[in-house]
């Protein structure tokens, strides 16, 4: 029995963090956030050198062939650095192809995805979080019509994996006729969402596995939870560092129990979450029968813990906390988006109760 990360896993995570310290510095993130035309090509290129786009893609297609736990550890590092890259699609699209794609579809897309030459986005928000504003995709005669909302990084992706209203996944080429895309600007400017409109767009159904949508959802929950974990770590580190430096009433504010207890509460809430995220990542591949429930709890619980930490870390910084100059808001907003994407905690918990047969 071993409930810990391997040396390789730790080293790979640290290595990615080192890469991101340069490639995704706060200055770089600020530039990305300020310019909707910025696609973050240089950041993506650095991560492509690292091999990140192929993390869960088999070695036969040029990927690293690693597990979802490894992918989650990378997500944690990306969350730490509030990195502006289309990572959700980079993991979920290959998973969709692996679970439900044909050999031909896999051979056509996986090598290009692994090399970072094409990017992917996954439009499953309606199927997982529920349809808002009349969204939803109808499939008919191999064509999709309707719209999909809140597609993370969907405005620029070359490949789209979308769910129709029946829960069937489809593969859509980003250049297909009849496909329209608009950026949906939200609070988090490090990952842009898109509204996709479909007017009889040609699509290939991914028919290999009827449970593929649920697996994608679970993987997405784990990745979002891991991203939040990394972002929360940084918020606590920043708050603690500030409290050790800032002086008021002739002493550092971190020596006041009113302040240090806030920091202790943040750490006490977050530290056990690390194990939850690890296990959720591990279970996806090693214990699939437990995977959905633990993924749901990881997603919902990290959402709750991150709301507390984002707010508290801001407060520990006093007035500085709410300034643009400090930049803490990038992390605050990152976890704000992670909370709602693929279902807010209440919806996810309702699903968690259902999937273990507690409620109807």
């Amino acid at each position, binding site marked *: *029995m071993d409930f810990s990360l391997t040396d390789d896993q730790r080293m790979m995570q640290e290595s990615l963090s080192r890469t991101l310290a340069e490639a995704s510095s706060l200055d770089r993130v600020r530039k990305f956030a300020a310019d909707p035309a910025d696609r973050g090509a240089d950041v993506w290129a650095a991560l492509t050198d690292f091999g990140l786009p192929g993390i869960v893609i088999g070695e036969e297609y040029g990927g690293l062939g690693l597990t979802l736990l490894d992918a989650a550890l990378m997500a944690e590092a990306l969350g730490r650095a509030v990195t502006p890259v289309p990572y959700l699609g980079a993991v979920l699209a290959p998973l969709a192809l692996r679970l439900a794609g044909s050999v031909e579809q896999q051979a056509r897309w996986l090598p290009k995805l692994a090399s970072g030459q094409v990017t992917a986005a996954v439009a499953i928000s309606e199927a997982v979080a529920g349809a808002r504003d009349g969204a939803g995709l109808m499939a008919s005669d191999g064509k999709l019509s309707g719209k999909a909302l809140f597609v993370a990084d969907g405005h620029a992706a070359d490949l789209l994996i979308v769910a129709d209203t029946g829960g069937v996944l489809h593969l859509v080429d980003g250049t297909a006729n009849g496909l329209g895309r608009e950026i949906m600007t939200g609070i988090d400017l490090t990952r842009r969402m898109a509204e996709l409109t479909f007017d009889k767009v040609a699509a290939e159904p991914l028919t290999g596995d009827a449970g593929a949508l649920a697996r994608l959802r679970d993987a997405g929950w784990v990745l979002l939870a891991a991203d939040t974990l990394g972002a929360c770590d940084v918020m*606590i580190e920043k708050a603690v560092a500030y409290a050790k430096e800032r002086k008021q009433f002739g002493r550092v504010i*971190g020596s006041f129990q009113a302040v240090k207890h806030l*920091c202790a509460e943040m*750490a006490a809430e977050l530290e056990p979450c690390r194990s939850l995220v690890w296990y959720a990542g591990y279970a996806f591949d090693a214990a699939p029968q437990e995977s959905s429930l633990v993924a749901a709890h990881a997603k919902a*619980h990290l959402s709750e813990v991150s709301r507390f930490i984002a707010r508290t870390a801001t407060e520990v910084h006093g007035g500085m906390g709410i300034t643009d100059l400090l930049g803490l808001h990038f992390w605050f907003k990152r976890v704000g988006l992670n909370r709602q994407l693929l279902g807010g905690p209440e919806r996810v*918990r309702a699903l968690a109760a259902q999937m273990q047969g*507690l409620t109807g």
Partner: protein
Amino acid sequence: MDLRLSPDMEAFRDQVRGFLGQHKDRYASGAGAERPREAAMEWQALLIDNGYAARTIPKAYGGYGAEPDILKSRIIAEEFTAAGAPRGFANQGISMLVPTLLEVGSEEQKIRWISPTLRGETVWCQGYSEPGAGSDLANLQTKGVEDGEDFLISGQKIWTSTAAQADMIFCLVRTEPQAPKHDGISYILFPMTTPGIEVRPLKTMTGSAEFNEVFFTDVRVPQSAVVGGRGRGWFVANATLKHERGMLGDPNATEARFAALIDLMKSETVDGQRLIDNPVMADRLMQLQARVMTMKFNGLRTLTASITGEAAGLAGMVVKLQGCELNHQIAALAIDALGELGVLYEDGPHLRAKGGWQRNYMFDLGLIIGGGTAQIQKNIISERGLGMPREPKLAVA
């Protein structure tokens, strides 16, 4: 990450299961505040003989003498829980005094006290807290005045569970009044039958006296009863306070309680609807389940750390704070889900779980406070875990 057990460990699990199946008719619990009954002492003896209690205590002191193996300990814990079999005694003598003696006791003290303590023949109570020394334990004022070969001990202890039944007390006493406060304390063992000791039950909000106050008036104790040297008591006691904090917030106990809460919410109804079918209640239940799961995995992580000899760090420091709060919240949801039924407390046709949810809810608040209050835990987490500065001391008024 690999949660599979090796074939050796699976074989050990089968062995524990076999033992528990074979001896079902001898199960007898020694838990609770009473002195263990004869059947419980026999069960305890059987457990020690087979290595399921006092497992790592050397044979010379009445234990089983196995090498420490955290994984085997965990398998034993899991199998006993699954079989509903009473565990070995976990009283204060066994959990706190025995580890202390093993660490710093003299050979004579080890031989004299460990074996009868393990077998339940000698029951101990702990004399640490005082009315004026709670979180600031080192401020304790019970004094031991040198008188020839003896100390004459006077003062008052509080929160002394099992004092009424105990044969012996392990007690912190200020024996060196001139020394700085942490260096003036001795850790002393003496019989509760010594003249000059008065025990008064301390009734709590649960309606029971889970604790006592103990008064000492010129209690004569030989100086040879000191453990670890005169004036070393603070360091001796600190070595064992770790063991107490480890007991509080145990995720296995939390999981068992959460399972009972799920059963309750599935079986009880209001207006003909199961409690769990109320979406607000189901949501609260799921929030707690996430926390139960989180603390379980955190426990596996700290377990791995102790197997590999790594420091558990923050993951260990937060267990008491988070675990005790979680237990309290599980009881709170059970009470809320039961509504008016949840406030019943005396025997009657409508009483649920013998009033246990309310008793836990109240008693757990005591555990949030006891063994280092939540606020003291937050000091520890922020100072030792996050490296934040201590609150500066005020000039003494």
